[in-house]
């Protein structure tokens, strides 16, 4: 677990002062003080239970390894969020296998679907296994934990248009955010990146800009995604984006290969290319650290 990256996030306080958390894992003194009251959670993603090719012949074992590491954290996170592609082909057996491993988590699980979990635009199997708390009929939801507003969006239907949120969800999001003060930290989860990260490979959300317009007024927004099996960060105004490593296998950097399919690495290298993310969010914004499964 030697690959422990710390990615900085510039957050504006209500007084309009920018705090930059240093790269390389160095917190500023004020940031450390602020993090004491932070909401701490963990993100995992893209487990692809049922995948059995050379890139990772045992995806259940690597997911289990991530869960073991999370369960060993001395202070358990408020929750663990899985940002989608829990299964590879949405089959009952794959959902059952995923559930049996994920149920080992000590912390509560919140699991979003990826496009692999709703094949045929059918999200009943996902909903019957992993429906999120207080989910709307469309599956999306929001909640507040210790002054932080969390939103879980679904953008994996009608996938011909890449990711798509749709009018119903965007209308709900507008209502959901309407009464919140701009100083409230907002964290958004979705499977597919909400901005045009690499549309050539489907790494975008067709109507994502409409959601980002609704989020733009807040002082600090952190958007955490999966889908692309690697860590890529991006900033637009006060919105910071970070995609996550998978627990299954990595994918090529955007455009670095002829196709985005699974990358096959030597076994030791695989464990260094997959992992989980710890996140802390407070009034200064979001900070996160990525942990590989191998050293």
């Amino acid at each position: 677990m030697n690959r422990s990256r710390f990615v900085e996030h510039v957050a504006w306080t209500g007084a309009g002062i920018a705090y930059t958390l240093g790269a390389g894992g160095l917190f500023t003194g004020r940031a450390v003080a602020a993090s004491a009251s932070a909401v701490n959670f963990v993100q995992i993603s893209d487990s692809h239970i049922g995948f059995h090719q050379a890139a990772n012949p045992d995806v259940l074992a690597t997911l289990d390894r991530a869960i073991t590491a999370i369960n060993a954290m001395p202070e358990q996170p408020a929750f663990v969020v899985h940002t989608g592609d829990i299964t590879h082909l949405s089959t009952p057996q794959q959902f059952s296998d995923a559930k049996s491993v994920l149920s080992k988590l000590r912390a509560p699980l919140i699991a979003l679907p990826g496009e692999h979990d709703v094949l045929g635009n059918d999200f009943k199997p996902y909903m019957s296994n992993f429906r999120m708390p207080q989910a709307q009929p469309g599956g999306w939801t929001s909640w507040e934990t210790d002054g932080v507003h969390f939103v879980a969006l679904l953008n994996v239907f009608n996938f011909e248009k890449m990711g798509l949120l749709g009018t119903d969800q965007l209308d709900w999001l507008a209502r959901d955010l309407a009464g919140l003060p701009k100083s409230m930290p907002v964290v958004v989860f979705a499977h597919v990146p909400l901005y045009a990260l690499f549309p050539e490979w489907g790494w975008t959300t067709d109507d994502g800009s409409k959601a980002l317009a609704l989020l733009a007024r807040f002082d600090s927004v952190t958007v955490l995604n999966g889908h692309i099996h690697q860590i890529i960060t991006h900033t637009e105004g006060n919105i910071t984006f970070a995609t996550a490593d998978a627990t299954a296998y990595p994918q090529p950097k955007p455009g670095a290969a002829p196709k985005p399919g699974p990358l096959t690495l030597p076994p030791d290298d695989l464990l260094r290319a997959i992992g989980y993310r710890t996140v802390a969010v407070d009034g200064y914004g979001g900070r996160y650290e990525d942990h590989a499964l191998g050293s």
Partner: protein
Amino acid sequence: MKHLYLALALLAPAMAGAATPPPAVRMVDDAFSPATLTVDAGTTVVFTNRDDDAHTVTAVDGTFDSKGLDSGASWSHTFTKPGTYRYFCELHPFMKGTIVVKAVRA
């Protein structure tokens, strides 16, 4: 021996017909190959996933959908009505293909 040659000559066309594989589309390197396939109405097309990732064969107009095809899996569909059928992979929307179905004259 003369009769044997004659028998082989008569059988040859039938044997050639029997050996002709059905029209096929392969999924290789996140692409449908061939990207466009023209067949007669009533033809069954076999789609085979030769990739190391899952794919689907999903009609843009919703008339057919293979659902998830694991690596090595095949799925077939019979195209009965003439027309142009566009399809894509639900998991990789940049993968697009077309089946052109021609009318068969009686």
